[in-house]
């Protein structure tokens, strides 16, 4: 009985895939959208072929393989749903701001010798900056192209495909450094567990906490920390300021470690700590000091204090190792590393924006409006 339902559902999914393909079969508004358009078309074609396989492959139609058939089908459906709400949505509602930011990303790609194709940008995010690594689609909030202070986060997003992309020898050294760091995290928590067994405290609670902390690190924290570090190494202090700005705006305790559920991102304090270590590592010591002072003032103003669990979750030596592994990885894939005196258009614009912001806060908005207008005008002419 379930077979006939599955067959009908698979056919319906096939039809949905064709409809989606129809929605993007129109003349493109800009050459910047070609890559995304091609990727979406290829993904739809692939999904249709796979769905057809689920209807016709005599092996998968066997009764004892129904679990596999259902699981594969659900994942193809999920692929289509994700495609529909991301890539296809961006292609059917293109905006001039998308094109301007896509051009900016291309410029960043050239400036820092980014080793992968630059992503397309869509101002469609309902949350914050994010990247769909398989579609190479970077999503930012609607109004983000009219402000400069958070644009350093584009560099952070560019780091995620360096970890997620498979089978590319050019970026393998970066992934190896990341993998080495993950192994170090696993070793660290293994040692902590052994120590916990010898301790006299509440063993069971800490055993569970240590398992969860290791899980957080490997599942999300390490990835985020490496991406923060990539942004620092390729852009510099503007990224640390952007993190300062984001933390100041969010009402989240930067030391808070929640072990009652899954904590996707590391505590903001740990992120700032690695950024400061990284700035020092590349010789931007004065810049690191300036950020450090303001950060300490911000923490002081919010009245929060470090917790015992914070340091247990984010030991300083792990943060230092991450900074070293990420720097090595970024060097090995031949990306341009910032150093004192380095200069290039986007790097200068984003770092100068923060200089302007601190030097003359009252005049900053007018300066930013002018800088954005020039940026968009330049993008329109390019």
């Amino acid at each position, binding site marked *: 009985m379930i077979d006939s339902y599955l067959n009908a559902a698979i056919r319906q999914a096939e039809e949905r895939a064709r409809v989606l393909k129809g929605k993007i079969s129109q003349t493109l508004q800009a050459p910047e959208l070609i890559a995304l358009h091609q990727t979406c078309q290829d993904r739809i074609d692939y999904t249709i072929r796979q769905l057809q396989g689920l209807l016709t*492959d005599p*092996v*998968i139609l*066997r009764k*004892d*393989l129904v*679990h*596999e058939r259902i*699981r*594969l089908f*659900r*994942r193809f459906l*999920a692929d289509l749903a*994700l495609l529909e709400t991301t890539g296809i949505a961006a292609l059917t509602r293109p905006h001039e701001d998308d094109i301007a930011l896509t051009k900016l990303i291309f410029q960043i790609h050239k400036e820092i010798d980014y080793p992968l194709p630059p992503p397309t940008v869509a101002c469609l*995010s*309902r*949350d*914050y*900056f*994010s*990247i*769909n*690594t*398989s579609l190479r689609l970077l*999503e930012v909030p609607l109004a983000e192209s009219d402000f400069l202070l958070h644009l350093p986060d584009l560099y*952070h*997003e560019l780091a*995620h495909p360096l*970890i*997620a992309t*498979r089978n590319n020898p050019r970026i393998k050294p970066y*992934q*190896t450094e*990341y*993998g*080495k760091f*993950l*192994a170090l995290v*696993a070793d660290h928590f293994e040692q902590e567990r052994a120590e916990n067994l010898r301790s006299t405290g509440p063993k069971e609670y800490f055993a569970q906490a240590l*398992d969860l902390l*290791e*899980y957080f690190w*490997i*599942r*999300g924290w390490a*990835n*985020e920390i490496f*991406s923060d570090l990539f942004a620092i190494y390729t852009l510099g202090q503007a990224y640390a300021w952007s993190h300062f700005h984001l933390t100041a705006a969010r009402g989240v305790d930067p030391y808070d470690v929640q072990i009652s559920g899954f904590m*996707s*991102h590391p505590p903001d304090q740990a992120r700032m700590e690695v950024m400061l270590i990284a700035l020092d590592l590349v010789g931007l010591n004065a810049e690191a000091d300036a950020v450090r002072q303001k950060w300490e003032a911000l923490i002081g103003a919010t009245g929060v204090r470090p917790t015992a669990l914070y340091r247990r979750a984010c030991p300083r030596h792990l943060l230092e190792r991450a900074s070293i592994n990420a720097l090595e990885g970024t060097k090995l894939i031949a990306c341009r590393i910032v150093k004192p005196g380095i200069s290039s258009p986007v790097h200068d614009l984003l770092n100068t924006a923060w200089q302007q912001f601190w030097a003359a806060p009252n005049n900053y908005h007018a300066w930013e409006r002018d800088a954005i207008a020039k940026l968009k005008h330049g993008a329109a002419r390019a």
Partner: protein
Amino acid sequence: MSDVGLYGSIYEQLRFYADTLDRALVALRNPRVDLAQGARREIATLLREIVDKESTDPAARLVTAILKQGLPAVAGQGLTLCESLAATLEQRPPSPAELSQLEQVALTLDKECSSTLARIKGKR
């Protein structure tokens, strides 16, 4: 990166392993001996990759962490189960009981894919 982006990236990596395992489980039942044997080797390699403590492959590390959390609840043996299944598959075709254990591994990965997807959609 927002939660949506992070979960999307986790989903992509998990999905690769979940799909590879499910396809290999299908091929394992293929009447063509060469295809079934190829699938057996593929699953053994995949399981070895997951239990390799020295691995520097980020995706394998992620799957290890997930199975470490998810498998004890369903199979009572955690990663040891993956290790013994890999050893078996390197020697011979799996018995019905072993096939069912492989199914548990596939199910654990699939569940994690589904819950990650739900998070992408903002459901939890």
